[in-house]
């Protein structure tokens, strides 16, 4: 492995020279981990995540990480991450679909424990019947955990979001975990161009003492941490303490927004801001939304795109502003429940403008023609012929 020198996080994320490589999404995530000065990665295999944790294991074998092991199952992996981070280490894991749900009790407790970990979520079908294909319904389960949830469109996003997540999650005023989601196979196993920072540079190590909740390492007081353990005092006290703590967790989530602006250029990307009809999408659906905008331009239709990069914190104000003049809002998704459409409807006035769909699931691809059908409907166009390709 090349000798890595520690560089300032802002320099690495915002200024360092970049080299263009043609790699898979799984490689992009591992390349980000390589530059993140991670202490320990704890793995459990589940398709299509396995490729990421295999590559991260290789990084450990090469000396980029200090520890790595295959845990007993996902619950054990996510619990061990909690232990490692509470011990002051910088930790990473990744999971997919049913694996995420298997570990979700532990994951859901991370924000409350103030665990600044980064979790890759390489999405996959959850419900029966069995399929290993991409479908991002699992993101719906993450939305109420308290963690920051980012949704990557492509390999470049996977690299940028993952590397930035280590920095964002450890900011003193955030200090909660960040999930970097992207569609399994479509992104993890497909190649795209990625502009990467040099591999001989890495983030500064985690400083666990620069934290709102210090590590449990017997190096700092207090010695007696729970003399008045809240649960034992009374139910009322317990409820109150839990309520206050949850409010703080969600405030931390909102405070992550300024770093999403700083390191990721904001929580949304707007294409053709003066459009009449908008496609609002995250992850791979945003790529197809981009195609729909191109199709529409060729047909002379004024269509725009709002790509949502950050699902938590949800960019309420930004989406409201971007769509203030939109006649119709089309929300294509890779899941059957339409969690993004619900989120968008919840923040928009006159939300009967929001068209929930098209939706594909079970691992199917999202043909741009399906989005275009909604576009024609929105413009009141009866279309007989095929769209121009």
């Amino acid at each position, binding site marked *: 492995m090349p000798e890595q020198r520690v560089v300032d996080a802002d320099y690495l994320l915002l200024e360092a020279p970049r080299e263009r490589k043609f790699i898979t999404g799984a490689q992009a995530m591992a390349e980000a981990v390589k530059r993140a000065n991670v202490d320990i990665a704890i793995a459990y295999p589940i398709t299509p995540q396995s490729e990421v944790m295999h590559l991260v294991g290789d990084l450990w074998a090469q000396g980029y990480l200090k520890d790595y092991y295959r845990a007993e199952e996902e619950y054990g992996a996510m619990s061990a991450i909690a232990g490692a981070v509470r011990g002051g*280490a910088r930790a990473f894991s990744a999971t997919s679909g049913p694996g995420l749900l298997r570990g979700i009790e532990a994951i859901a*407790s991370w924000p409350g424990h103030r665990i600044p970990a980064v979790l890759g979520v390489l999405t996959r079908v959850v419900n029966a019947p069995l399929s290993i294909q991409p479908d991002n319904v699992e993101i719906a389960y993450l939305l109420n955990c308290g963690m920051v949830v980012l949704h990557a469109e492509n390999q470049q996003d996977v690299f940028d979001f993952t590397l930035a997540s280590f920095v964002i999650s450890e900011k003193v005023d955030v200090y909660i975990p960040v999930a970097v989601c992207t569609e399994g196979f479509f992104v993890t196993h497909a190649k795209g161009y990625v502009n990467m920072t040099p591999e001989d540079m890495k983030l500064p190590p985690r400083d666990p003492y620069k934290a709102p909740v210090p590590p449990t390492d017997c190096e700092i007081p207090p010695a007696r941490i*729970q003399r008045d353990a809240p649960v034992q005092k009374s139910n009322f006290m317990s409820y109150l303490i839990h309520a206050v703590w949850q409010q703080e967790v969600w405030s931390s989530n909102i405070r992550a927004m300024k770093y999403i602006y700083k390191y990721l250029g904001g929580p949304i990307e707007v294409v053709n801001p003066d459009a009449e009809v908008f496609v609002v999408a995250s992850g791979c659906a945003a790529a197809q939304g981009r195609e729909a905008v191109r199709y529409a331009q060729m047909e002379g239709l004024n269509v725009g795109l709002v790509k949502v990069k950050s699902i938590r914190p949800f960019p309420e104000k930004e989406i409201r502003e971007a769509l203030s003049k939109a006649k119709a809002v089309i929300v294509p998704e890779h899941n059957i429940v339409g969690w993004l459409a619900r989120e968008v409807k919840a923040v928009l006035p006159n939300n009967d403008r929001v068209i929930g769909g098209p939706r594909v699931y079970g691992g199917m691809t999202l043909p741009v023609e399906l989005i275009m059908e909604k576009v024609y409907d929105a413009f009141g166009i009866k279309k007989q012929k095929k769209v121009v390709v």
Partner: protein
Amino acid sequence: MGLEYVRISPGFERYMPKDYVDLVKYGQFGRQMDVQQLGQFKELVEEHPMCAGCFMAYFIRVFYAALPNPEDTIVIGTAGCARLALSQAAVPFIYGNYGDTNAVASGLKRALTIRFPDKVKDVVVMAGDGGLIDIGFGMTMHSWFRREKFTTIMVDNEVYGNTGGQESGMSPKGVQLKMAPKGKQFDKINAVELAKVAGCVYVAKLAPTNPKRIAKTIRRAVLAARHFGPTFIHAYTSCNIEYSIPTEKVLEDARKREKQDFGFYEWMTDEVKEYFEELERKPEEVRT
């Protein structure tokens, strides 16, 4: 380093809580206490909300008095009776999700090893039969398979005491408990043999009737884990509520069970045996 964080900065003694000052002046930090002196020094755990006559609470009291290096020890527990006292001790305590103690301990111990390669940081899991052998079974076993260097202590009250008396895998066969309306259908799981097979380097089983023996066992388990690999103690700590043992009969019950099926048992690898033979010839070196 642990001692540094418990010391009080000069001039601040008068502003610190009396409890804390007493811990530093008359407690175990930096000293090796003899459990026979319980009551004569400031203990790491004093107040707790466990039931009157709880044998588990007594065991926990002795456990803390026996720790070889309390200022550099972290205890991990899970939902259940034990953590009610564990969480009130003057030793850092981590409370995870139900049954995940040994997974959390694995991550924690590894993180401490990465961060403090030249220091001793002991990690001890103390949890009940439900947390370790039922719900957390896979995580308990795999931490042993992986040879994680921490101690697991099972305080076995043979029931889900904290949730109101349901059967566990460690309840004796035939006993009628909530959720075992016709009596438990299978034998008590042999946790000690499982621990041996799974790779523990030191294993002990006891009914905690003799405090000196408890202390020696705990110290041995922690020291063996520090140097060689996973260690396990299976302690009978009756639930006097769910098994209706009158408070004044709790010790009598423990002695009865000691004769019946909890006779003191200790097993260790040859390597660990050699280590203790050497170490215990020079007791002043027990502490690192």
